[in-house]
């Protein structure tokens, strides 16, 4: 199927958005450190940024694997 990979890519991005919402709302948001609000917020922000980096890494890996398999392998 010509568009199979791209349909799959859309579904994976959708799933990552939902999974990200679950992690941030249900797990990260309730975190409260004894060190105070600023420390808690810093930790939450660090987790959120790390998540974005991991999500991007997953998507780049998928994209590279597909391009290697379908395009540059022919070269």
């Amino acid at each position, binding site marked *: 199927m010509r568009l199979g990979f*791209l349909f799959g890519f*859309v579904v994976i991005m959708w799933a990552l958005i939902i999974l990200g919402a679950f992690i*941030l709302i249900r797990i990260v948001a309730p975190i409260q450190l004894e060190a105070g609000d600023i420390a808690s917020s810093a930790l939450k922000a660090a987790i959120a940024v790390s998540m974005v980096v991991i999500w*991007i890494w997953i998507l780049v890996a998928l994209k590279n694997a*597909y391009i290697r398999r379908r395009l*540059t392998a022919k070269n």
Partner: protein
Amino acid sequence: MSFVPAVIASAIAFLVTYLLTPALIKHLNKRGMVVKDYHKPNDKQVPRPGGPSIIVAIVAAELALFVFTMSNGVLAILLCTVIAFFIGYVDDRKVMPGYFKPLALVAAAIPIILLSAYDFYLDFPFFGSAKIPLLYIVLILFAIPIMGNTVNSIDVLNGVVSGFIAIASVPLIITLLLQNKTDIAIAALPLLLSALAFYKYHKYPSMIFPGDSGTLAWGAMYGAIALVGGVEVVATIALLPAVINSFLFLASVKRIAEHREVKARPTVLLDDHRLMASTERSAPATLVRLVLAHGPMHEDEIARSIFKLAAFSAGMAILTAALIGVSI
């Protein structure tokens, strides 16, 4: 009560774009404001920008709606769209560096903040809302440039950006109606109808290109509707094919750059005028290159493939909107 403003705003947006664009095509041709259509034989020249007919239609429709509603939200959407149009128009007339559009579009986000036309909540399916009072203002300042440039980046082939915006605006309107945000749903109608009317002239083979003034106005308006209507997540999902295109490009070139600044082309034009994906390792990954991964296609076939992807994402966005009320 909202039926009359909806009909008036829709009729103005559609008719003004539909009737004004042919005159604009003539005017641009007469003044020599044309650019090469790179995917056509014989150095075909196409008038650009079509943004002025789009913005006149949107401004007329939104002003009429503002008279009916006196809504801050409608005014914020209107001002954001107009500022984005002027930023795009500068880029249409003068070649600007790659950072100009993302940076300048921050100004288009200001009316939404100054008019307080937003709330602080991000609604997600299954897990409820996230309240982010301070962070939301930062989100607005980032969202308008990102949405504007994302829509701008999908202006890749004849008819694609106008058709794409028409498809992506449908889940936005449905979600706003489901959430009883009728004023903002009506404010989104001119986005859909100006894109539909412009598509008549922009579809393959294009008689006019929207230019950055047209695409940035549509993109910023789309973002403003998402923020003012509080349907950010749904809007992002409907926009995923364009997001993927931007993401692929940025992940390949690893910097903010205009397509013209990248030397290796993602596609190759064949003698029979079909497009083929480049097999060069240094060529940037783009949505079109991935669509072409299975073999060469004609330009209009690629556009139809992108529309199928847009329709799929629009379906996912509507599903997401339906699931927002569901909690687990």
